[in-house]
Structures are given as structure tokens and as C-alpha cells.
């Protein structure tokens, strides 16, 4: 018990020191505030949305932004702000589900080929070459084309391509860590490969991967809303930013707010993820590299 508390307190101290350094950076603080707000909007849209996002109001069709409707109303008189807020739920989910499985699969495969090398590594290298030969979006929409449009199929398609990027990163990190003495020490002590990989190498290799995950969530929102806009992601009547922007596309001349307002949410959320990601990358970068 004493051993446990002893081994915990330095870690906790380091984390506290790390957080203190992180929060002394304005960009990190801004990013965290944006992400915190986005998460609250995604979890409790009903608290924040002033109107029912689906309620038609035929008395108030395509009204300009005003105090009553800060983002205006759409062609059915629905409040655009409320729809944008409800869309946080879908888009924040997108950021998570489009990346988490790629992260898990990528780490597993990357750790495996990075640790064992050999023929598996050669095959992996070729597969990576082949997959990055396709433009990301083209490959994803080709897979969506075969599976059919929709959110779940979009997650499958993005994961099918995206895991490669995590695997490539993990492989490089694991190979770098493997060269260290402590990995050899693990071997000498007779630890199993699994123990060395997951208890020793991976914890040391994980921080760049998690930083990449942050920026990747921003990319996932850009990608997911693009697919939504193209009609291949979330399907109307679901409120999703890309879908909302597409709905306003035909009214750019008469009701520009329908398309332009939802974009603010995309930009803000993307900015939140990249600010946090960049700050973490800066802080975690080993000195003198």
C-alpha cells in the first residue's frame, strides 16, 4: 500500500506541473474553453437551444438574424441557432467515433509491426504506400459509395482508411523506444512481449499519438461535415453542420445566414481541437530534438 502511494505521488506531481505549464499558455486555455463549451452544447442541447430545432414556424420563414433569432430562420421557419446547437451532438460524436476505432486499431497494428519487424513490417509498409496513394476523401467516399450513405457507414469508411496513419505513427514511435536500454532490460528480465509492448514501450510512445488524435478530431469534423454537405454522411432531417450548410445552399442570395452561420460552429470547434493539440505537441516535444 505504501509502495503504491509512493509510486503515485511523483506521477501526480508531474501531471500537476504539466497542467500548470499548459494552462499558462493562452492558446491552450482558449482551446480548452472552446472544447468545454462544445462538449456542454453536445451533451445538453435542450438547455442551450432557445427553440425546438425541428418546429416549423410558417410565420417566420427566412428571417434575417435578429435578437429573437440570432442566426436567423430557415426556409421552414426553424431557428438556425437551435439547429446549430443540436448539431453539436452529431458533430462532436463524429469527432469521436470517426477517430477512436482508427486509434485503437492503428496502435495495435503499429505496435505489433514496430516491435516484431520482419515480413509483417514489409507488408505493412506496402499497404501504407498503397493507401496513401489515394486522396483521403476519394477513398472514403468510394467506400461510402459501396456501403451506402449514412453516419455509421461513414465511420466505417473513415476508420478503414484512417487507422493507417495511426499505425504508421505508432510503428515509428515503438521502433524508436525499442532501441532504448529499458526495453532490452525487459527482455533480459524475461518479460513477455505483450508486457514489454503494452506496459513499457507504449506508455512512452503514446504522447505524440494522442496529440495527433487531437488534431485528427478536428480533421474528422471537417471531413464529416464535408461528407454531410455532399450528401454522403449524416442524412437530413438530422441536424449536422454540413447538412445544414447544404440545406441553405440554394438560398445563398436570399438567406445567406442559413449556410454561413453553421460554418461558424465548424470553424470554432476545429480551432478548439487544433489549439489544444498544438499546445500539447509543443509541451510534450522532447527538448533538443
Amino acid at each position, binding site marked *: 500500500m505504501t509502495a503504491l502511494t509512493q509510486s503515485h505521488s511523483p506521477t501526480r506531481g508531474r501531471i500537476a506541473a504539466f497542467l500548470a505549464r499548459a494552462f499558462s499558455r493562452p492558446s491552450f486555455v482558449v482551446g480548452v474553453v472552446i472544447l468545454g463549451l462544445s462538449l456542454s452544447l453536445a451533451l445538453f442541447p435542450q438547455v442551450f437551444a432557445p427553440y425546438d430545432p425541428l418546429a416549423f414556424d410558417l410565420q417566420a420563414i427566412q428571417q434575417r438574424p435578429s435578437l429573437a433569432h440570432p442566426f436567423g430562420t430557415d426556409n421552414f421557419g426553424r431557428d438556425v441557432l437551435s439547429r446549430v446547437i443540436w448539431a453539436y451532438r452529431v458533430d462532436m460524436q463524429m469527432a469521436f467515433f470517426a477517430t477512436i476505432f482508427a486509434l485503437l486499431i492503428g496502435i495495435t497494428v503499429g505496435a505489433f509491426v514496430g516491435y516484431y519487424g520482419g515480413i509483417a513490417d514489409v507488408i505493412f509498409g506496402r499497404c501504407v*504506400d498503397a493507401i496513401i496513394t*489515394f486522396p483521403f476523401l*476519394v477513398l472514403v467516399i*468510394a467506400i*461510402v459509395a*459501396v*456501403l451506402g450513405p449514412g453516419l455509421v457507414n461513414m465511420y466505417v469508411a473513415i476508420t478503414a482508411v484512417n487507422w493507417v496513419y495511426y499505425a504508421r505513427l505508432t510503428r515509428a514511435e515503438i521502433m524508436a523506444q525499442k532501441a532504448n536500454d529499458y526495453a532490452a532490460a525487459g527482455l533480459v528480465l524475461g518479460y513477455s512481449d505483450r508486457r514489454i509492448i503494452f506496459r513499457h514501450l507504449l506508455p512512452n510512445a503514446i504522447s505524440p499519438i494522442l496529440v495527433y488524435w487531437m488534431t485528427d478530431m478536428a480533421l474528422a469534423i471537417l471531413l464529416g461535415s*464535408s461528407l454531410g454537405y455532399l450528401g454522403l454522411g449524416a442524412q437530413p432531417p438530422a441536424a449536422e453542420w454540413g447538412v445544414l450548410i447544404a440545406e441553405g445552399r440554394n438560398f445563398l442570395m436570399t438567406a445567406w445566414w442559413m449556410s*454561413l452561420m453553421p460554418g461558424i460552429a465548424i470553424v470554432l*470547434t476545429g480551432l478548439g481541437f487544433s489549439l489544444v493539440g498544438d499546445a500539447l505537441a509543443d509541451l510534450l516535444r522532447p527538448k533538443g530534438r
Partner: protein
Amino acid sequence: MPSLSYLVARLLQIIPTFLLVMIFIFLLVRLLPGDPAIAMAEAKATDAQLEQIRHNLGLDQPLPVQFLVFVKNTLTGELGRSIMLKAPVTEIILARLPTTIFLALYSVVLAIFLAGPLAFLAASRVNTPVDVAIRGVFQLGLSMPVFYIGLLLLTVLAAQLRWFPVGGYGKTFLANLYHLILPALSVALYTSAIILRNLRASLIEVLDADYVQFARAKGLSPRIIMTRHVLRNALVSTVTLLGLSIGNLMSGTLVTETVFAIPGVGRLMLEAIFARDYPLIQGLTLTFAVLVSVVFLLTDVVQSWLDPRLRQS
């Protein structure tokens, strides 16, 4: 110039990659759930008609045979017939490809002209308000999806101010430049955000490097230092980056072509998807893969020309 053996070795590298690309495209249409024949046939097609479609597509053959046929056809440029447009896929793609390539090149040129000078400005005034402002604006650009940038430009510059056409495609080179400026700009803004970030970092590094300080100490004029040392080195990283972001660029043109209704291969891909036109989807996916690997190849060649160190490996 890079040596011939380097070029040959680099070309040979493409072969295994391309084999995998072909396997992937082949499996994409065949192994995933859903029968292409049913998707292609009319709603009230009889079993005999379905059988006929399967036979025409060679779907009644064993998979390895189908694959060999697919490889042979691909190598001879025979990509089948489009269901939607009722014409050979190769012909359709070749007719639409120049528009997309024009748009992509246009975007790259715009992106370089946008990012280059601003990166220099930011790098020579690190951490001043100018630098912070430039980085801030481009950080914002990185958080914007291309279709949104396009719609913003379309609304403000085309619909409200009427400075530029809302869409379409010109007949002559100059008309093209004019018609495609907004779509090219939307892709360029996003691409330049990526370039600027890296170019700024590499410029700061080069400006601080020993050989540049030595050149200064030697009393070389700033202009010679700039052109001979700084620019050349900064160019290497920019070329690499541009080459690597060709995928992004292609994805971007696909989206802008849709936003601005430009008849290129990107919009064709979406039309093909909604029409479930499998031969066309397959042909287009292949086209994109070929485009990207050609650009990767060119990048390597230009890189080894600019940086002789890379030739040895």
C-alpha cells in the same frame, strides 16, 4: 540532374504499390455487401437479365480470373462502360480530366503566391504582432472545410459584390482563369494554410543556420544569401510538402467542383456514386490513384534535383 539509375529505381518502386492499389479497387466493388448487378439493373429486371449483366461484367467467373481480366483491361486502358452516361469510362474520364488538372495547378500556384511572401514576412519578424496575425489568420483557414470557404467566397464575391462568376467553365485559357478563380482560391486558401505553417518553420530554421550566418559574416549581399541559400533550402521543404498534400488538393478540388458546379472528375465521382455507376467509380478511383502516384514520383525527382544529399540513399 538525378541519375538515370535513380529514376529507374524509383519507377520500379511504383509497381508493388500499384498492384496493391489494383487489388484494393478490385475488391472494393466485388467483396463488399451488395450485388453490383442488382444495383445496376432496372428495378423490375428478371433473373435472366441479372444473369446477363453478371455475365457481361464477368462476375460469373472465379475471383482470380476476374482479377487478371481486370488487370489486363486496366493496363490497356479498357475500363468498361459507364452505366449512367452510356459511354466508355476511359473516354469520359479523359474528357473531364483537363478541367480538374487545370483547377489543381491553378490552386497550387495561387497557394504558393499566397503562402510564400507571407511566410517570409512572418519568419523575418518572429513573434511580432505581424507574425502572430499571419499565423492566426491561417490557423483559422486550417479549421475551415474547403466547401465552406467556397460558399463564403461565392456568397460575398460572386453573389453580393458580383465581382466574379458564380460558376461554370470558360472556353479559352484566360476565360478559364477568370471563371475558375473562386474555386481555385477556395482550395488555395486551405492549401496555403498548410504550406505557410511549414514554410515559416523551415525559413526560421534556415535563417538561423550556421551556413547562413557564415555567409553573412563573409559579407555576401543579403540578396545572394536569400536566393542561393535560404530560398533553395526552403524550396526543398515546400516541394515535399506540396507533393505530399496532393491528396488534400485532389480532395479539395472534388469538393469545390461540387460547390461551383465545375464539370471535372471530382464532381463526376459524386454523380457516379449517387447513380451507383460502379465501372465509373472504379475508373475514377484508379485515376485519382494514378494522379497521386505520378505527383509523388515528380516530387521525389524534383527533390533529388534540389537536394543532392537525397540522391545517395
